[in-house]
Structure formats: C-alpha cells, structure tokens
C-alpha cells in the first residue's frame, strides 16, 4: 500500500501530453477518468494474445479468456466486498440502472412509488420514467438543499407504504456531496422499500463495503474507475437477482431455447445476454488491481487537500459562486461553480487554451440545474493523479476568463 503522487502520474501516459501547446491539466475525471498503463496493457495483451469468446469454448484461448473474465468479476466483487456471483457486468452504469428499472420493476403494481432525488444524473431518472410509463408507477423526488445535498428533512413526508424503491446517487456528480446512506437505509427499511445507490462517482474514491452500507442494489461504471469504456457493473443481493426476470434476451443468458419458449440461466448469467465486453471487463479488473495497491487514506488526504486549495481559490473571487458543500465534510473533489458574466462553455474554452480540461454544462443533471435556476455550471473534478499545479492552472485560467469576458 503506497501513494506517491509523482510516481503515480507516470503511470498515466496521457498526462505527459501537451494540448494546445500546454501541459495537460486534466480536471474532468468525473466525466471520464484516465487509464493507467496497467489497464492499457491488460486490454492489449488480452486482445493480442488471449482473445476468444467466453464460456462455451474448450480451446485454450477460450479457457484463458473465460478465466480472465471471471477473475475480473472477482476483482469487482473484491472492490465492493460482495460475492462474485452477485456481480453482473453491463456496458456501464446507465445499462445497469436500465436493467433494474426494466426487470426488477416488473413485480410492482400501478401506483407503487419510486423515490428519486433532485441530484440524480439523467441515467438515474430517465430509466425510471420509462418504467413508470409502462407500469403505471409514480415517481417522486427528494429535493436538494441550497448546499447541493439531498434534503433528508423531506424524507419522512416522501416515503410511505407505496414506496418500493429509493434510487439515489451515492455521490453527486455536480456538487460532490456524499450522500448520508444510513438515513436512506433507515427510510427504506421503515417502509419495506429497496435502496439502489448509483455509485458511479463514489467507486473511484476507494474500496467499498456494500454489505456494511446496507444497499440492495449498487451500480457503477468502469470508465470513471480508471478502467475502459463500455463496461460497468450491477450488484444486487442474491435473492433479489434470483427473483428478477431477464432484461435483454440472447446468447449466454439461456438454459434452453425453443421457438415457442425459453428458460433462463441463473444470475449473473441471466443478465449478461450476448457476448459480453470481455476485454473491457478484464481492463476493469486490471484497474481495480492497480487501485488496490494504493493507500486510500493517503489518496483521500491528497484529494481533499487539492479540493481545499480549489475551494479556497474559488472563494477568493467574488464573481464566483460554488454549488455544493463549501467545506470538506462529506464531499469529494467534484466542484461546480458559476462565474458572473461568463458562460460555462466560454470558461471551459478559455481554460482549454491553457491546457486545463474542465467541463461546462448541465452535467446530465437538468433537474438540479433547474433547482438552482441555471443552464449549467463549470465543474472541476479531481482524480488520484492531480496535483497542485492543476488547481493553480485552473485558478490562473479563471483570472483570464474574468479579464476577457467579465470586464
């Protein structure tokens, strides 16, 4: 267990790149994190030397690919502290949430309620809307506080006998606020509802202990966890998975197929229709292997000190308003802000010319933007490889923005 920021940076080839003639200051890890050599190499080695379809071949390549794919499932299970056969590979968090929204909801009745929050990413809203339309479900949403957190005070009024599921983000991709999961677990327990946590933004900040957390479903996406694109995972408790009907149909997920009817394999395979993203799963396993060598209390301290530096710098500019917790309590290094007189896209464009990669826009969270009455924010997000120079480059860039656009 080590953490040496400079040595770590050397593992990420892209950080050596220059963009627009400047060193790259990548502050967009909440959109997609960069990948270390361990991941690049695992993906390439698999595809160059061990590639085959999984699960049904007996030849050597097929055995190698199958073992590597299942080992990756084990790695994911390790990161979440759950059993491998409760882990389903999907093409991302969005696919994982759609799976639950289309399959698990089949047992609900019209009028049953699903409780979301105003902080959700569209991927944790729209799937429920589509399911609600088809099944006659009612969607409600916990409001956001002015600090950009889930308003837990509203919880008692929002849960009741009809509430069947609470689906909430574990960490907001806009404000960086970490959700008080215990409060949601208690609320869910009080009415017999299940709890789904969208861990897309939480998973990249250290290993998890899902059983201790008390959720019933957990999803995350590989490309934000320093892994490949096109891979994600759904975890759910065994009994829940066992009772869920299939979502996508196809190869791999069946027991017996006739034209008239089919029977289905047990989980996890029941939910992995078709050839899975094999190389991507292996790359995700490699990412987790890499991350597992880090000392996560040191990483957290590092990320938090950068976050503090950023918050301080932003607070010093009176044109800037931060959306999200002002302090470090229960937050991660995802920081959204607004600058009077400058549009997020213009800010990002001027930053880009200085090699600083930030994101401007609604961050797939329009309901939260509506809550703050904004079209969008500028967001800087901190990953394990950032350092003080990244934060300073951003702050310097914001000075230029002010000079050029807010004069």
């Amino acid at each position: 267990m080590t953490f040496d920021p400079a040595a770590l940076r050397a593992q990420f080839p892209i950080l050596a790149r220059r963009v627009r003639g400047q060193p790259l200051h990548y502050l967009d890890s909440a959109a997609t994190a960069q990948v270390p050599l361990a991941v690049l190499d695992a993906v390439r080695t698999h595809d160059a030397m061990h590639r085959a379809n999984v699960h049904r071949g007996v030849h050597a390549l097929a055995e190698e690919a199958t073992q590597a794919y299942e080992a990756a499932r084990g790695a994911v299970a390790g990161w979440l502290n759950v059993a491998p056969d409760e882990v389903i590979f999907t093409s991302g968090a969005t696919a994982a949430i759609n799976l639950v929204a289309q399959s698990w909801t089949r047992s609900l009745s019209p009028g049953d309620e699903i409780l979301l929050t105003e902080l959700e990413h569209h991927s944790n809203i729209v799937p429920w809307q589509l399911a609600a339309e088809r099944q006659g479900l009612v969607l409600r949403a916990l409001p956001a506080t002015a600090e950009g957190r889930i308003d837990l005070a509203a919880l008692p009024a929002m849960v009741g006998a009809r509430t069947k599921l609470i689906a909430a983000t574990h960490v907001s991709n806009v404000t960086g606020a970490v959700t008080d999961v215990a409060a949601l677990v208690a609320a869910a327990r009080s009415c017999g509802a299940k709890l789904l946590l969208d861990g897309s933004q939480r998973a990249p900040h250290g290993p998890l202990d899902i059983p201790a957390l008390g959720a019933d479903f957990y999803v995350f996406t590989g490309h934000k966890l320093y892994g490949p694109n096109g891979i994600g995972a759904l975890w759910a408790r065994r009994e829940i998975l066992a009772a869920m009907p299939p979502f996508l149909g196809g190869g791999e997920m069946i027991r017996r197929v006739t034209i008239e009817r089919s029977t289905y394999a047990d989980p996890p395979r029941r939910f992995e229709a078709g050839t899975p993203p094999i190389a991507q799963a292996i790359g995700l396993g490699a990412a987790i292997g890499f991350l597992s060598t880090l000392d996560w209390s040191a990483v957290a301290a590092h990320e938090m000190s950068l976050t503090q530096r950023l918050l301080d710098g932003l607070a010093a500019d009176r044109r800037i308003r931060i959306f999200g917790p002002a302090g470090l309590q229960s937050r991660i290094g995802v920081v959204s802000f607004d600058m009077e007189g400058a549009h997020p896209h213009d800010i990002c464009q001027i930053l880009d010319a200085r090699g600083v990669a930030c994101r401007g826009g609604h961050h797939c969270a329009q309901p939260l933007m509506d809550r703050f009455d904004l079209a969008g924010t500028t967001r800087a997000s901190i990953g394990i490889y950032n350092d003080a120079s990244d934060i300073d480059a951003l702050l310097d860039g914001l000075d230029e923005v002010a000079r050029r656009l807010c004069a």
Partner: protein
Amino acid sequence: MTADDLYQAEIVARAKSGAGDSRLDPHDARATVDNPLCGDRVTLDLSLAAGHVVALGHRTRGCALCQAAAETLRRCAPGMAPSEAPAHREALAAYLAGRQDLPERLADFSAFAPVRSHPSRQGCVLLPFEAFIEAAAMVDPDRR
C-alpha cells in the same frame, strides 16, 4: 486555434449586445429552442412585411458564441424571406465545417472563422438559426 482567436474583441462585443433582450412586441412569429447538449436557449421573434423579415429580436441565454451569433443574425436578418431560413442555416453550417465560403448575406459571420476549428462549439453558433427556422416556418406563406 486558441481561445484568443475565438474570443476576439469583436465577438465579445457582439456577445455583450446579444446578452440583452431585444425581443419584439408585437411580433409575427416567436420560437424558442434549446440546445440539448448544454441547455442554452434562444427565444427569437420575427416581424414581417411584404413577406420579408423587417426585424428580428431575441433573448438568448447562452454562451458568448451563441449570444454573438444571435446578435449577428439580428443584424443580417432584415430582408430575408422566411422560406430561406433553412438555406441560410445550411450555408453557415457548411462555412463552419470548412466546406464553403460565406454567402454575401451572411458576410458578418466571418468573425466566427475561428469556430471552424472547434466542432464542439459550432452548435452554439447555429442555435439562433434553429430558432429562426422554427419561427420562419410559422409565417412562411408556402407552408400555410
């Protein structure tokens, strides 16, 4: 191309004018369009006489490029026929994509030349034209 080129004084100045509210009341047609990628929004009004635009007004909640483009369109629009709106949009898109020069009518858009090397921002410049097309369709005599 760098941000320096994108945010030359001329564009910034037009953006500042474009940030105001130049909506027309009364108007012959009004349309509002959103950019689904960023949430930017243009509300655009047309006044017509003898089948041609006599005035175009707008309220634009958007980035500097979008505001500057709306403002530039406000200046170019008088004299255009509603039925030409889609063709103007195509001409500007083709210019931004580097496929052709600007037609005379849109000559003022040459200030946007640096956007040619920023594909992700071309939608910002085109958004006012989407609103123009929608508003124009309401008053296009050929469509009624």
